[in-house]
């Protein structure tokens, strides 16, 4: 795609002093948010954090390693259903169920990766393959009675008064902090990954797989690794989704629209960067919600407006700001990297 910026070694050089200060303020706001925000703002923040997380997970595969997956909703769905099934059918709590979720998703990812990379399927064909798998799974789950089929799979209705973090039953506040922690961990993990040999090899593969091979990079192994890590990370989002919303419908969760929603944040924010997915998710969610609210105040409730807005944003970014918004913004605000590193 458009040339993603170079990964520089670590957070410290990704932002200059001003940037770090800004980040500290942001961190403070995020931690304190549930205490002064209304429940509406809280739920909005949860949506932002959710898409920031899934965007980060997807970014590992595409932004870092250059493998375009347009069927990432597959992992959200499989992860969610796996953990939910264990909880509802066997009484196994989500903290154990999460391992099954990751395992199941990694299995799916392994199959897709093995098929694609063994047979040299890349680029657009790979993207189509991922879409096909997601759709295939959607239809499959639509007919899987044990998991509710198309009628949906439901977790016991949660009370929101007191928190039971062991079973992930509780208030919005609990879910918020959980998701925030997940986001922070994902961010730290991705920052670390980029600085390792794996991270550099991924970027080499993204830039020029043939040249990477000539330098001794086993492209099959590293592409598989990217898929496995990305799918495992995404599965956690699925688990969260299942326990927060308490219902799963194949038509919704495996939907291709969901896959597209996942990728909008990172692309608009900045592919391959660390802050891109978060920025993109925040901007899109806030603006989209703003539009919906504004329309509602005028008395209009039009389905599809939000998505048209997403489409226009994507169009604008693809045409005018192919690097995403984060690089341009960082420069503008003067919080970008030192030494001319690009992050």
């Amino acid at each position, binding site marked *: 795609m458009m040339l993603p910026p*170079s990964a520089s070694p670590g957070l410290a050089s990704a932002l200059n002093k001003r940037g770090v200060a800004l980040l500290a303020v942001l961190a403070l706001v995020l931690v304190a948010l549930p205490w002064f925000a209304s429940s509406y703002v809280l739920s909005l923040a949860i949506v932002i954090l959710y898409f920031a997380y899934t965007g980060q997970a997807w970014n590992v595969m595409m932004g870092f390693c250059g493998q375009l997956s347009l069927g990432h909703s597959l992992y959200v769905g499989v992860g969610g259903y796996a953990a939910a099934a264990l909880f509802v059918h066997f009484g196994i709590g989500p903290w154990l169920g999460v391992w099954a979720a990751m395992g199941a998703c990694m299995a799916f990812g392994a199959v897709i990766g093995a098929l694609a990379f063994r047979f040299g399927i890349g680029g657009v064909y790979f993207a189509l393959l991922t879409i096909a798998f997601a759709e295939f799974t959607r239809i499959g789950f639509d007919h899987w009675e044990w998991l509710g089929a198309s009628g949906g799979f439901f977790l016991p209705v949660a009370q929101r008064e007191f928190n039971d973090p062991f079973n992930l039953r509780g208030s919005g506040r609990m879910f918020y902090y959980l998701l925030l922690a997940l986001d922070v961990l994902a961010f730290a993990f991705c920052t670390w990954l980029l600085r390792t040999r794996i991270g550099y090899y991924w*970027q080499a593969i993204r830039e020029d797989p043939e040249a990477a091979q000539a330098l001794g990079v086993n492209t099959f192994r590293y592409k598989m690794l990217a898929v496995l890590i990305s799918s495992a990370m995404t599965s956690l989002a699925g688990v969260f989704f299942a326990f927060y919303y308490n219902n799963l419908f194949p038509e919704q969760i495996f939907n291709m629209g969901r896959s597209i929603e996942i990728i909008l944040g990172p692309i608009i924010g900045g592919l391959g960067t660390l802050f891109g997915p978060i920025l993109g998710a925040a901007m899109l969610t806030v603006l989209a919600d703003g539009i919906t609210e504004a329309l509602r105040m005028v008395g209009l409730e039009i389905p599809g407006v939000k998505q048209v807005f997403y489409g226009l944003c994507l169009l604008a970014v693809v045409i005018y700001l192919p690097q995403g918004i984060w690089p341009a913004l960082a420069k503008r605000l003067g919080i970008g990297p030192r030494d001319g590193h690009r992050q």
Partner: protein
Amino acid sequence: MSEAALLSIRSVSRRFRGLSAVDNVSFDVPPGHIVALIGPNGAGKTTLFNLVSGALTPDSGDIVFAGRSIAGFRPDQVCAAGIGRTFQLVKPFAGLSVLDNVLVGALHHTTRVASARQKALAILERLSLADRCHVPAAALTLPDRKRLEVARALATEPKLLLLDEVMAGLRPTETDQMVEVFRRLNREQGLTILLIEHVMRAVMALSREIHVLNHGELIASGAPEDVVRNPHVLECYLGEESAV
């Protein structure tokens, strides 16, 4: 007394849909030598490189490197065996900095990123690119990209370096600089080099032996002075009249 060859190309052939790109080519590259491969465009030189580096598999014949057959190896396995290569049309990691480009190469043997980075910087120094180490590779001029390509391949610590037309597009002074770099690497580290080259200035300055390819076949081999006077060689470059 003949030394055991570092690279031994034995009766290698490769066809593309009926067209013989490389036809029963055999020659050796002794360790520590600089050997040139020349020939008109389309003679099969880059195809031969691709066969050695693992980008293509020979239809017949064998390629033996340091006593081991490497025919059919994947490119990354060939690199692990100790062969580095550059590409005729340079392939930099455009979105990465110059330093990061070479770092990827250095990571082959040095798995710790910090040490690999030191190594990469040292190599960039040798190739006079250290002052631009943070510049994105996409912003380099062609001569610098060629040097980057060489630096990157060197970072994998090869025993044999395959250079594919690295002098093309360089001015005479730049060519001389490159020649000097290779001479030093050959002298100080014993790096064996097999180069495809059209720039005769570099070929004559560097190589100990020259092999000439035409229409996929090896038509002449020998010391530079002899090869350039060989009538067959002149004929394939300049046409039949020149051989008279």
